[in-house]
């Protein structure tokens, strides 16, 4: 069972999955791990951490190897994780700061909108290159993408490599379930939920505790002004649309026209800042002090600090366990909408419950979403579709179209202002983009 991590230097994440791999009852001698990253320094840290995890769990350490060349790692891979970041903090700074000057105030900017679309323009070519190699070297592998913008990337891959077994994974569904359980003081393991929609905007269609619908209790709870201050825009939408949405209130505030179109609204709907909607919060997240971060890695790699063996929230390794025959597992995954959500377009990427069993991933049938939820998803999906066409056809006008129809941008700017903003972003990010755009 060979698992390859592309972008393995995404350290916290890779470490979490390696811990899950060590925790679950895979036959020790069959585990094989390949770590790939173009950053040699990061790669050497994760290799040392992986060796340590293997050693502490009775997995032969020679079964993990690291390379900067993915083509060396991919042959024989049965499972491939992709978690990459194309471009550095300076690119992200431009994603945030240029639109902000035009009044388009983003918090994270990694999903849709100007930040999400330009992140897609930078990332998609690399993802497609990786997919080309997978199609050549391990075409049967299950590929799990953790890279954003999730929906646009999965959609591009589906059009270009329709035969790949390519799935998008995120932790926003299970993380939101945990938050709801915490707000209510419920044991997470007793909370049952059925969530569907699109990535970063999926809906808790059912929420049950011991078989009982507990939405009425949650509806009472969100009247608490203290809770409102922690998770503001999601609670606002819950009150007005009737359902709880995934991801964070900061993310969520960007994907609709209601919360960020005027400074007074941003002020009112982002109390506390941070994940709750702080302007440009992503720059803080990505701009952490690199030196102290590396010191911490060194302490883990050297054995000075203990490895945290708590079970992670990530679905990735549990899915592999089920695919290997370890029983049926349910996970929300991002994949083409083949009959699952009947009132979203058939070509889009949806995030729906899937049942994983030996050798197969089976998306569940969800049916129609409540109209008011489908409507918001469709607004986002149509913008994604134009971004996808921009990438596939290499046509700059589709980038304009994608942002003309972005719910937040459209609420703030006129058509010619949007075009001007996009042109400015193209110029500023030229170094990170293919020459063919210019």
């Amino acid at each position, binding site marked *: 069972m060979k698992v390859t991590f592309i972008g393995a230097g995404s350290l916290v994440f890779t470490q979490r999955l390696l811990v899950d791999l060590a925790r679950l009852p895979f036959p020790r001698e069959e585990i094989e791990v390949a770590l790939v990253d173009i950053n040699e320094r990061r790669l050497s840290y994760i290799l040392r951490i992986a060796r340590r995890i293997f050693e502490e769990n009775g997995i032969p350490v020679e079964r993990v190897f690291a390379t900067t060349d993915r083509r060396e790692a991919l042959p024989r891979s049965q499972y491939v994780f992709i978690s990459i970041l194309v471009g550095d903090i300076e690119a992200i700074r431009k994603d945030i700061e240029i639109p902000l000057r035009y009044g388009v105030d983003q918090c994270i900017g990694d999903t849709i909108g100007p930040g999400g679309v330009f992140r897609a323009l930078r990332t998609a070519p690399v993802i497609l290159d990786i997919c080309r190699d997978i199609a050549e070297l391990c075409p049967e592998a299950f590929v799990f993408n953790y890279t954003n913008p999730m929906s646009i990337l999965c959609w591009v891959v589906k059009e270009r490599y329709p035969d790949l077994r390519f799935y998008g994974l995120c932790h926003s569904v299970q993380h939101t379930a945990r938050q709801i359980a915490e707000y209510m003081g419920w044991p997470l393991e007793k909370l049952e939920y059925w969530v569907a929609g699109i990535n970063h905007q999926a809906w808790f269609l059912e929420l049950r505790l011991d078989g009982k619908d507990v939405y009425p209790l949650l509806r009472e709870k969100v009247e608490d002004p203290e809770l409102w201050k922690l998770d503001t825009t999601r609670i606002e939408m819950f009150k007005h649309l009737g359902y709880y949405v995934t991801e964070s209130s900061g993310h969520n505030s960007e994907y609709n026209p209601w919360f960020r179109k005027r400074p007074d609204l941003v002020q009112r709907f982002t109390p506390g800042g941070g994940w709750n909607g702080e302007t440009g919060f992503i720059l803080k997240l990505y701009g952490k002090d690199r030196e102290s971060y590396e010191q911490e890695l060194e302490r883990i790699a050297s054995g000075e600090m203990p490895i945290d063996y708590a079970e992670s929230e990530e679905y990735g390794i549990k899915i592999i366990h089920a695919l290997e025959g370890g029983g049926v597992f349910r996970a929300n995954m991002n994949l083409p909408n083949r*009959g699952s959500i009947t009132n979203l377009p058939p070509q889009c990427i949806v995030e729906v419950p899937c049942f994983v069993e030996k050798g197969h991933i089976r998306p569940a049938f969800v049916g129609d979403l409540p109209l008011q939820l489908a409507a918001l998803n469709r607004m986002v999906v149509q913008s994604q579709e134009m971004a996808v066409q921009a990438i596939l056809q290499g046509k700059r006008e589709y980038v304009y179209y994608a942002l003309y129809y972005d719910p937040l941008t459209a609420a703030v700017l006129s058509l010619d202002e949007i075009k001007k903003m996009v042109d400015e972003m193209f110029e500023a990010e030229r170094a990170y983009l293919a020459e063919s755009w210019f």
Partner: protein
Amino acid sequence: MPKIVLIGAGSVVFAQKLITDIITFPALRESTLALVDIDETRLELITRLTERLKEQEHLPITIEATKDRRKVLKGAQYVINMIQVGGLDAYRLDVEIPRKYGIDQTVGDTLGPGGVFRALRTIPVLLEICRDIEELCPSALLINYTNPMAMLCWAMNKATRVRNVGLCHSVQGTARTLAEYIGVGVEDARQYEDEEYRFFYKPMPEGIDYWVAGINHQAWFLEFRYRGENAYPLLWKAMENPEIYRRDIVRFEIMRHFGYFVTESSHHMSEYVPYFRKNPELIAKYIPERWDYYEICRSGLAPYMERIKRQIQGEELIEVRRSLEYGAHIINAMETGELVRINGNVANTGLIPNLPEGCCVEVPCLVDRLGIHPCFVGDLPPQLASINRTNISVQELAVEGVLQGKKEYIYEAIALDPLTAGILTLDDIKRMVDEMFVAEREYLPESLRL
């Protein structure tokens, strides 16, 4: 602990199996089982048998018994339906009248004149049960075991708001049979002398995987694998062995000509297409050994009752062993969250896009604490969808005939039945259906009486 209501608990084929299945799950051992039957003798027998089982296995279950389902439906989470409206008397008419006209049905519970008339008798009663569920336990899951499966589920989905799933053992049973044909688990199979017992109780051999979809009694093994490899080549090879071929001629012929193996049995399948039962010579050729289900039920009843009586008296132990039926697995999954995959009969909400929207399809479903989640299957190979559609057209007319009280739809349903249409003229069909309407009058709803 869940409350499970069994309606038609006197059922010979299902009740005892489901009750013993339920108690094999640790999480269900404290269930309340409410047994309902309008036949007092049958109800008393199954109640005493269940009490005997409780004693024998020292079970903490609670047993209730009544002739009036309304007394026990309140608070039920699961309702299992196993009724047979009109019993063997009506069933006899379903097969004997058409036989006079040359329509020789061996089962007659799914399609054709027998299946359609069974639907006419059963749908009105089932809808009354659903009305009671809507009133007394609206969030309960109704698990239907009664035939004709597709027509009944279609009618329920169209005319009620009851959560339901239709269950049959033909998918998992055929998978076990196919395993034997390709030589997997044959040794285990030899341990079972009684063929019927083997069918219900032999465990699934390791390494067999399948993906089956279509309609009830006519679903297709779209994938059949052994140890991860496509096992169809082994099946084609098995067909060359005359001993194996003879056991399942009709279904092997279907595979030879349409490319896929079908569920249920050769006897059932021979009724749903025009190729095998058109005249006595064909029947002798393709189904050399008769298997007339009405006769089997009639002659099997007394020995079955005798056996139950011996068990009640403690002269014979009640065997506690899990059967291949899905019912108890579903309840366990919904109570514990232990996921399970089943094949269930559900409304076609785009699950099989090349079968009509809304018809009843039998597709893989996953079950968790929230209930039954059907899987998307996609288009069937066109030749398989076409065979299914011939059957679905009959079902649709029969269902609409009952729901709208339109007798002409019933004539048209049977006129479109592939077997009947292959044998009779339209006026013969009219006469046959007239005769059935008259003979079965007492079992039919007012709107469908001649």
